[in-house]
């Protein structure tokens, strides 16, 4: 079958081998939910530096993208919320780490636009706030909007629940989050899945990310899937 053989890899080290110093990456996940933990670990092993990483959050000190920070591999981070990470704070305050904060919905749409071939869009989000500085403002029907530019990256790292050998992906519950958008925005998208199945096993009606957006796919084993805040019934809200 055309294209099938080329996508499936067996080693995460191979999957990220051509991520070179200075590369840009968009990484799926929300908090620690739905993060591509195996690809991140492989990047930690490769030790490649000066990375620009676009991801809603930056993990915690010892898991997720936090392990790349701890190893000083990230030069610039584009995120909406980074409050869970002390190493992040230290590197940001020392000037070692550049940070661009982007409203969460604007970040999602910039990635979607990037993957969809739309160079920019107008949104009311951020008008009159510090993030409007330096951005074109335009009125539509009496309301002000900011011009936001699309985002793409050299590589995307995404995590799905199941995938087939063509790269078709199905996510589980809220682990979907930014993953489909990351998959679209990456020039080379590396998808890791908990279960890799044969072509034809996934119901076409249920595929979230069509395989056309995925260039490499691997099955990971022994997922940690750490939970940031376990809250149980009867415990009450924080």
């Amino acid at each position, binding site marked *: 079958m055309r294209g099938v053989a080329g996508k499936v890899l067996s080693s995460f080290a191979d999957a990220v081998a051509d991520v070179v110093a200075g590369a840009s990456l968009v990484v799926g996940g*929300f*908090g*620690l*939910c*739905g993060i591509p933990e195996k690809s991140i670990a492989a990047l930690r092993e490769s030790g490649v530096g000066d990375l620009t990483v676009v991801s*809603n959050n930056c993990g915690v000190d010892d898991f997720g993208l936090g392990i790349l920070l701890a190893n000083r591999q990230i030069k610039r981070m584009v*995120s*909406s*919320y*980074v*409050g*869970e990470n002390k190493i992040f*704070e230290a590197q*940001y*305050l020392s000037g070692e780490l550049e*940070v661009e*904060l982007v*409203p*969460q*919905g*604007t*970040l*999602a*749409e910039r*990635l*979607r636009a990037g993957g969809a071939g739309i160079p920019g869009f107008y*949104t*009311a*989000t*951020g*008008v*009159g*706030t*510090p*993030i409007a500085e330096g951005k074109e403002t335009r009125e539509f029907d009496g309301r002000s909007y900011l011009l936001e530019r699309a985002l793409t990256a050299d590589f995307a790292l995404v995590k799905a*629940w199941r995938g087939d050998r063509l790269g078709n992906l199905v*996510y589980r*519950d*809220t*682990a*979907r*989050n*930014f*993953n*489909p*958008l990351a998959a679209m925005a990456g020039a080379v998208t590396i998808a890791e899945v908990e279960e890799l199945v044969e072509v034809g096993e996934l119901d076409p009606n249920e595929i*979230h990310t069509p395989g056309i957006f995925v260039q490499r796919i691997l099955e990971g084993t022994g997922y940690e*899937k*750490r*939970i*940031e*805040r*376990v*809250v*149980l*019934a*009867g*415990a009450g*809200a*924080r």
Partner: protein
Amino acid sequence: MDDPRSRIVKRAARELTDGMNINLGIGLPTLLAEHAEGLNGVMLQSENGLLGIGPYPQAGQESADLINAGKETVTTVAGASFFDSADSFAMIRGGHIDLAILGGMEVSEQGDLANWMVPGKMVKGMGGAMDLVNGAKRVVVMMEHVNRSGESKVKQQCTLPLTGTRVVHRLITDLAVFDFPPQGGMVLIELQNGITLEQVQQQTEAGYTMRDALPV
């Protein structure tokens, strides 16, 4: 029961009505989730990709794949749906969310909100707050009227960096409730139980008018 925070929560609970799609922010607004369970057809939205948040899970039922925007384990209600972050913010930005309830650091008499950044402190980020205040049909802010040093958080102008300008429809504090009508300005519409107009006047930096028949 009548501490300032529970007074705010009790009053804010009345903003939720049957059939609404609602986004509750982190902090004080989260305490309204339990109240929402008692209403008909209310769907709570979590901006990480869930419409129809259920109660916290029983021990052993928690899942790493199912969390709310505060990164806490949750469950789903019947009729819930999952979606990606772009669809989630299409719901928010596109005006499909009936009500967003957020915490605040400062609110100005023009309905400006500051709730994401304190200069000199580590900036954690705005998350989805800027999208929510500009996109939801109605924006309600819950916050304590004064800060720990006793200074009014209800200001003529916000001093902290803004989350949005002229975005707040209603402000609920431990002392009073204010509305921000479309023509501008801030209107005192209610006093909290046991609070006098004099107390509100003393603790409010912002200028405001009063509704004609203020219930006492």
